[in-house]
C-alpha cells in the first residue's frame, strides 16, 4: 500500500515536472499567450516531499530489480559480489559523503548537489542496462518493466532536484552535468557470464546509490523543518 501511494504520488509529480522544466522556466512559470493550461505552481515543501517520495520509490524498485536479477541470472557462489562492488561502482569517484558524521558537516547546498550528481551519473547507465537486459533470452517482463520505470523516474527526479536547487539555493539553472561521459563506458562483453556479472554489479551499485539519494534528501528535509534536532 505504501509503495502504491508513493508510486501514484511519484507519477503525479512526474506529470507535473514537465510543465515546469520543458520550457526552462522558473518554478512560477509565466503564462504564455495562447497556452491552454496554466502553469501550476507548487510550494517548496511539497516539491521536496515529492522528490523524497520519488527517491524512496526508486530505491524500492531498484532493490526489487536487483533481487530479481540475482535470483535469475547470478550463480549462487557469486552472489556476494555486490558487497565487493565498491571498486566497480561507477560513482565511487564522486566526492560524496559516505558517513553520517560527514553528512552532518556538509551544507545543504552540497547535499543537494551530491544528489544531483548521483542522479545525473546514473541516467545513461540505466538506459544501457535496459538495452542489455533485452538481449537476455529469458528476462522476465517484470524485470524489464521495473528497470524501464526506474530509468524514467530517474529523469523526473533529476528535474525535481534541479528545481529544488534553484528554489532553495537561489542558484541559476544548472544546465551542465558534472560527469557527462566520464563514468560509464560501453564495453562489449562477449562472455555471457561477464555480461551478467557486469549487469549485476551495475544493479547493485545503483541500488546503493538510490539508497544514498533517499537518505540525503530526507536529511535535507529534516534540516528544512527542524535544523537543530536533525543529524
Amino acid at each position, binding site marked *: 500500500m505504501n509503495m502504491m501511494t508513493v508510486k501514484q504520488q511519484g507519477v503525479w509529480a512526474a506529470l507535473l515536472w514537465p510543465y515546469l522544466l520543458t520550457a526552462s522556466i522558473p518554478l512560477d512559470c509565466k503564462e504564455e499567450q495562447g497556452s491552454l493550461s496554466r502553469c501550476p505552481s507548487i510550494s517548496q515543501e511539497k516539491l521536496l516531499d515529492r522528490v523524497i517520495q520519488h527517491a524512496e520509490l526508486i530505491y524500492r524498485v531498484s532493490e526489487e530489480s536487483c533481487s530479481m536479477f540475482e535470483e535469475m541470472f547470478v550463480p549462487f557462489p557469486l552472489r556476494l559480489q555486490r*558487497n565487493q562492488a565498491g571498486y566497480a561502482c561507477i560513482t565511487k569517484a564522486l566526492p560524496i559523503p559516505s558517513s553520517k558524521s560527514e553528512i552532518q558537516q556538509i551544507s545543504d547546498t552540497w547535499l543537494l548537489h551530491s544528489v544531483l550528481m548521483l542522479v545525473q551519473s546514473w541516467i545513461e547507465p540505466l538506459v544501457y542496462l535496459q538495452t542489455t537486459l533485452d538481449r537476455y533470452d529469458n528476462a522476465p517482463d517484470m524485470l524489464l518493466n521495473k528497470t524501464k520505470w526506474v530509468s524514467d523516474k530517474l529523469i523526473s527526479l533529476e528535474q525535481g532536484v534541479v528545481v529544488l536547487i534553484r528554489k532553495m539555493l537561489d542558484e541559476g539553472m544548472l544546465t551542465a552535468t558534472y560527469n557527462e561521459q566520464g563514468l560509464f563506458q560501453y564495453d562489449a562483453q562477449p562472455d555471457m557470464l561477464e555480461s551478467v556479472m557486469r549487469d549485476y554489479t551495475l544493479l547493485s551499485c545503483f541500488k*546503493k546509490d538510490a539508497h544514498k539519494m533517499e537518505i540525503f534528501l530526507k536529511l535535507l528535509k529534516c534540516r528544512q523543518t527542524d535544523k537543530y534536532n536533525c543529524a
Partner: protein
Amino acid sequence: MAVSSPSSHLLILLLISCLDWPSTPASAFLLDRDHMTTSAPTEPHFTECISREQETFRCWWSPGTFQNLSSPGVLRVFYLKKDFPTSEWKECPHYNYSNRECFFDVNHTSIWIPYCMQLRSQNTTFINEDDCFTVENIVRPDPPVSLNWTLLNISPSGLSYDVMVNWEPPPSADVAAGWMRLEYKIQYRERNATNWKSLATQPHTHQGIYGLHIGKQYEVQISCRMQAFTKFGDFSDSIFIHVTEILSGESTFPLTVVLVFGIVGILILIMLIVVSQQHRFMIIILPPVPAPKIKGIDPELLKKGRLDDLNLILSGGGMGGLSTYAPDFYQDEPWVEFIDVNAEDADAGEKEDNQGSDTQRLLGLPQHVSHHMNSGCSNTIGFPDDDSGRASCYDPDVLDHDTLMMMATLLPGQPEDGEASLAVEEDSLAVEEGVSTSERTLIQTQTTGPQTWVNTDFYAQVSNVMPSGGVVLSPGQQLRIQESTSATEEETLKKGKEGEDNEGTAEKKQKELQFHLLVVDPEGSGYTAESTARQISTPPCSRMSGEGYQTIHPQAVETKPAAPVEDNQSSYIVPDSPQSQFSAPVSDYTVVQEVDTQHSLLLNPPPRQSPPPCLPQHPLKTLPAMPVGYITPDLLGNLSP
C-alpha cells in the same frame, strides 16, 4: 584502466570463488547460517557483523578450533575500507576481548562503502573474501519500545475482541531525521501455544490484532527492519493481552436474549389458547348475527321463496306457529292435517271441460300445470300424504317448478295480464251475480293465453271483500296493488262469474276449486285446508247473502265422487276483516271471515248470529279430504283417489 579493472576484477573474483568455494570451511557470516558446515576444523573466523543504527557496527570473531589462538590479543582484526582512491588494511579501532568484539564507532563507519574483515595471527592471515559488506546491508535495528495495547471492541457474542497495539521506534534508530526508514512486524501467540502468528510487515507504529478470544492470554512481540532490506532486528519484550468477561454491556446480552425468547414463548402460548378456544372467542368478539327467523316458519320456505305459502302462514294458517299473526281461532288446527287435495281427478276434470268459458280457461291452465306436476311423480304436490304436509313424492325439481309456477301466479313475471286475469277469474268465481259477456270478454281478453295461465296460479288469496260483494283476491303482494284499480271490474266479473257458476255445473266449480287446490303448495296449504274446511262446513247452513258471505256447497263436492278432491272449495282466507260483503247468492268462492271457536268457518260475519246448525261438524268427519298439505295417515283411507 577504468575499462579493464572491472573486467579483471570480475575474473579474479570468479577464479577465487571457483577455487575457494569447495574448500572454504567457514562460510561468510553474510550468507545464511544454514550453509555453514562445522564438521571440518574451522579457522578463526568472524561470526557476525551487525549495525544497529547504521552509524556504528560491531564484528565478532571466534578462534574456531584453533584453541591456541583463543587467548586475547593473539588474533587481531583488520579491516579494509574500499574507499576511493586508496584503501588499506587497518586494525580494529576498538577491541572488546571479553566477547571478542570489534567495535567501529561513528568516525570509522562509512555507509555505502564496502568493508572487508580479516583476522590475523602472528604468522597467518585468515581471510575470507566473503566477509565483505556494506554497512547498510548489515543493519539490524533495535526492537521497538513502549509497547501497549488498547481494546477496540468486543463482538456481540461476547466471545472475541479486537485490540490495537501501539509502540515507538527504537530510540537508537534516527527515524525522525529520515536516516532510517523502518517497517515493523508483529507476532503473537496464546500463552501456552508454540507457534507464533505473524502479521504483515508495515511501516506504521500501530497495528490491530483482530479475532482474539475472551479469557485467553496472548503474548505479543514486535521487531523491525529497514525498509527494502532483508534483516530483521531482535524481537521486543513480550506484552500480554488478557481480556476477561466483563461489563454490564456483555451481561445484558444474554438477558435481552432471555427476555426476547420469553416474550416470544408467551405470545405463542396466547396464540394457542386463542386458537383452541376459537369458537368462544369468536362468539364473544363477533356474536353471531341472528338469521332472519320467524317462529313457525321453516327457513326452507324463506330460502325457496315460496311466498304464497309464506303469505298463507303469515296470515295465520300455520301449524301452531305464528300465533302472533294468526287469530286466536287458528291456534290449534288439528283439522288442518287432514286436508287433502286430489290433483289427479282435477286433471281429468280439466280435460273433459275444454270450453271457451272462463272456468275452462282456468281449468286449462292448471292442466298444463298439473301435467308438469304429474310428470315428476305419481303424486302431485298438492296431494299431500304426509304429516309434514309435504307430498310423498317430494321431488325438489318438480317442487321448484311448481313453486316457480306459484310464484309466477302470485307474483307473476307476466305482466299484469296474469294478475288481472287471476283477480278477474277469482273474483268472477266468487261473485254470485251473473256474468256479463263483457265481463267474460274482459276475462277472455285479459287472458293473454294459455301460457300466461300456465304461470299463473289459480290459487289466490282473498284479501278483501268489496261492498258490492266482490272478493278481492290477492295471489300475492303484487295483486294487492291492483285491488283498488280493478275493484269494479272484479265486482262485475264476479257477478258474471257467479251467474255462470250458477249455471255451470258444480263440477266446474269443483274442478276449478280442485285446480286451484292442486296448485297449492302442500306446505302452506294449511290455509287452504282450514278455509276450505270451514267453507265447506258452513255452506249448507249459511246461505246468507247481502253481507258478502258466500257459501260453498259441500254437495258440490259430494256430487263429484270422481273428484278426489271433494272439497273443491276455494281455499281463500282473508287475513283481515272483509271490507266488502256479498249480497249475491253463494258462489264457488267465498270469503271466510271468521272461524268459530268450534272451528267452523264463518264465510260472512253474521250479526252475532252464527247459525248453530250451520256449525260445521268436525272437519274430520265432513271433509274427508281437503286440499291441503296436511293430512294424517288416518285420512289417507278417507281420501278418494
